[in-house]
């Protein structure tokens, strides 16, 4: 019958099997490639890969840094501040839009349009408008995630049943308390959900920008090593990026469970 469940042990076994299969497939592919051209670097062998990993984690003589540490530090700081300002801005804008119909009428059209432009195309605009320093990364991420997040906040506010607002008034709430104690509490978990979804795009802008103007960071390293065709460094970096994304996602889920325990309970 369709939809029949299987035992947990099967789940685990098959999951591990899938990963193993991928690794085996890669090994075969790489071996075939190296039989043709022993110097191939596009599908590095495991020993090449371990070389690449070593290169990334060992202290580099020229720059006196561990690449992956320096890059992770730079990228995560940029990401953090970018997302931080984007979230702050969108919370402000979204709240105002949700609470006050005239703000909504005013800001909705430009936001809706902005949300539709592939941010990568805006790279050029950001170079022009925000320069090429650290602030550029931050501005770019902030502006990149803002339209979608603001829309989410706005919709979340709109979703709060009017009855709850009314009731809060009958309980003696001031306007500010409605926003702070009712609407914000409602919006928070949804905002975190939306941030989780926007981390991906934010990474995309950041990596793209780092590829062009960075002198440290994941994007910079990947571009440089790609140009040198050191795929043995590029692939591990991509895996690190994936793990990075996973880590942030996990942290945000934990945060959500912490600040909005009610939400996880299936509200």
């Amino acid at each position, binding site marked *: 019958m369709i939809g029949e469940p299987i035992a947990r042990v099967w789940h685990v076994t098959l999951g591990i099997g899938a990963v193993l299969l991928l690794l085996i497939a890669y090994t075969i592919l790489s071996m075939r490639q190296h039989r043709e051209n022993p110097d191939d670097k596009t599908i590095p062998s495991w020993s090449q890969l371990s070389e690449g990993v070593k290169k990334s984690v060992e202290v580099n003589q020229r720059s006196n840094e561990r690449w992956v540490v320096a890059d992770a530090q730079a990228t995560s700081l940029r990401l953090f501040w970018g997302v931080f300002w984007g979230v702050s801005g969108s919370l402000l804008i979204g709240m105002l839009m949700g609470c006050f119909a005239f703000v909504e009428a005013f800001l909705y059209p430009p936001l809706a349009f902005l949300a539709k432009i592939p941010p990568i195309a805006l790279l050029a605009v950001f170079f022009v408008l925000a320069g090429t320093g650290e602030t550029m990364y931050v501005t770019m991420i902030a502006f990149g995630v803002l339209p979608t997040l603001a829309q989410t906040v706005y919709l979340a506010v709109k979703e709060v*049943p*009017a*009855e*709850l607002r*009314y*009731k*809060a*008034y*009958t*309980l*003696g*709430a*001031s306007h*500010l*308390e409605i926003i*702070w*104690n*009712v609407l914000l*509490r*409602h919006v928070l978990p949804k905002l975190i959900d939306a941030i989780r979804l926007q981390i991906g795009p934010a990474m995309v802008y950041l990596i793209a920008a780092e590829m062009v103007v960075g002198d440290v960071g994941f994007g910079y390293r990947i571009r440089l090593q790609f140009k040198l065709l050191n795929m043995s460094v590029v692939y591990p970096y991509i895996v690190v990026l994936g793990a990075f994304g996973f880590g942030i996602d996990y942290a945000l889920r934990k945060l959500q469970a912490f600040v*909005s*325990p*009610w*939400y996880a*309970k*299936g*509200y």
Partner: protein
Amino acid sequence: MDQPASLAIDCLSHGFGTKPVLHDVQLRILRGQIVALVGPSGCGKSTLLRAIVGTHLPRQGTVTVFSGNSHLTGHVVEGPGRDRGIVYQHYSLFPFLTAVENVAFGLMLDQTNISYRLFKFPRWLKRRAEHLKQAREFLDRVGLGSAASLYPSEMSGGMCQRVAVAQALIMKPALLLLDEPFGALDEAMREELQRMLLGLYQENLAARRKGELEPHTMFIVTHELNEALYVGDRVVGLSQYWDWRQAGHAQPPGATVVYDCSAPIFEPDDTRDFSCFAGQREEIRDVVFNPDSAYPREKHLRYWQELEQQREAEPAP
């Protein structure tokens, strides 16, 4: 003893677009009453309640609420306010607060403000503990002492509604409004909550005997006649079916109050024998719910006369 008024609705009319809904509604509720409002579906019961809460202001007429404790002073409703509590059928609780926090929410909003809570945090913590203690007492009163730390999504519909009643009661509103509060619950749960309301009415009677002001005044919208007669000490019927042609209207002008009589009073532990009000039920069916009924609207407004008679019958204290 003259009961002071708690609510006065004067010449209230309302409509949506060109469609009239309420026409010239007149109603006066006395302190300590539990008034049940019945009427055909869509006649405008909820609209009337919203006008009293102040979220949908009437087109014409006024709603006056009398609050305060020793000297009741009236003010015209212009928006939702602290003196009227409301229990809705759905959305009865704030989903992000536990049961006890929901009950304490009103105390917090009413007695403190954001800057106090932020900048006088230690003092606020102390105050908070008091609030929670008080809230827990009210939860006990509705029989939910053990569910204090559950979130609404973790409680059954009946539990939620009981918490909602506690949440409203703790604020000691001059008037508690309930819009089909038990409509979504199953029979057993309904019975229990109805008994709870009867218990509150007993508190009123006790207070009256002691010569104090009655603590609870309620206005309950329901579509169940049995519930109205069982819980209310007075039943008001709102209906669009009345003899409006006689009154000089070419078009149906909307619903108005067409029935207003006292209802039998039960104690919580009385057996629920509904046969005793079979006659009154039939009368309400005929006057309020029957689309072909064409009584003049004053015909079945007997409450005030009944009150007179009752007073005469009672010996002076």
